[in-house]
């Protein structure tokens, strides 16, 4: 029973989602909405479990003074602070001017932006490694990247402005993106599509059961 019921639910829900795509009429269109609502409800319950798990692990770390317990203390303090402030401000906690909004705007958003901004440096270091002309393929990649990058900025247009339109760098960049790049990407997309269909069928038909724990 421990396995049969989840397998049955997975099979029914999976089949309904497939059928509603091809038959978008009652009752399939409604069933798809119901299952989506149930998914949201189960997800909301799981969030509580996740938050409790995070708190349990962090508090244990602080109490037992394990390595890097200071970071765990920051997690516990931040979690409690934002939860208490959110609860204290009631239903309007997200309105502009509230303490919760202040924390969101001036603590959370800058921290998130800082992490996102790190990408610029990581892109530079990853590009440096990827574009080293070690072999023929890497050289092709380097040349393609060079022309695409140069063709996408105003200076690329300016230095080849005197040339016929079809030989300008911007045109070359567009050609690389529209043909060799698009062809490669579509090949990957076809493979991904088939992979998703095959994995979905394995799950819906109950052949793939690893996600239930064990074989």
């Amino acid at each position: 029973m421990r396995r049969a019921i989840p397998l049955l639910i997975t099979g029914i829900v999976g089949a309904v989602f497939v059928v509603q795509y091809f038959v978008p009429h009652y009752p399939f269109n409604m069933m798809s909405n119901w299952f989506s609502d149930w998914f949201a409800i189960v997800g909301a319950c799981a969030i509580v479990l996740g938050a409790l798990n995070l708190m349990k692990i962090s508090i244990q770390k602080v109490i037992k003074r394990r390595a890097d317990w200071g970071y765990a203390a920051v997690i516990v303090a931040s979690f409690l602070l934002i939860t208490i402030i959110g609860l204290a401000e009631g239903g309007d906690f997200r309105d502009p001017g509230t303490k919760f909004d202040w924390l969101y705007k001036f603590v959370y958003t800058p921290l998130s932006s800082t992490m996102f901004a790190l990408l610029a440096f990581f892109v530079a270091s990853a590009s440096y490694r990827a574009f080293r002309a070690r072999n023929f393929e890497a050289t092709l990649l380097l040349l393609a990247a060079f022309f695409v990058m140069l063709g996408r900025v105003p200076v690329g247009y300016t230095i080849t402005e005197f040339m016929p339109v079809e030989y300008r760098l911007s045109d070359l960049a567009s050609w690389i993106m529209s043909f060799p790049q698009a062809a490669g990407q579509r090949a990957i997309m076809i493979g991904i599509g088939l992979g998703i269909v095959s994995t979905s069928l394995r799950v819906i038909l109950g052949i793939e059961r690893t996600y239930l724990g064990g074989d």
Partner: protein
Amino acid sequence: MQTIAGITILGRVAELTAQYETWLEVPVCRSMVMITAKEIVRESYSKVGRPDAFQEDQVYYLTDDQFGYAAAIDGKVVREKPATMFFMGEFFAESLILAETGNSIGAIQIAGTAAPAQLPFFIAACDFTLIGEELFAASAYLSKEPKLLGSIKGQDVGKSLILVAILVGIILETFDIWSFSTLFSVID
């Protein structure tokens, strides 16, 4: 689907780490996945006869927030310097932040995703990358089950059919024969 494929791979990795008594840590960013991943790891440890080695806090939830998750992982990676890192499933802008940090500490990195926009980042920063369909094939291949292996064969047959369709399409379009392609046009 990518998460399910990633979880299947996690099962095999957990079996190996249990066998070789290697510490495995699974930080997740979806609490629903945490519950499943914990079960998978626990089962894998039991399967190889090491249920005692499994610890509850091996699999834990961090945050649903994209960059909060990346920050937590990066901090852990820099402080604890893991030997190997697996990135399996769907990734967005955090992919390069995670992979480059792993690369900077010299960890062996194995990535697998079906998000085409993140593939170049993983290829540039990781030692091995499962590209698109390979992620789904790997999860079936590792199980060694005939039925699952058959689905990989099915994928290959599907690809061959699409290849044939593309070739037929090219020939027909080249010779201005439109009647075949119009058979598949969508009627509004």
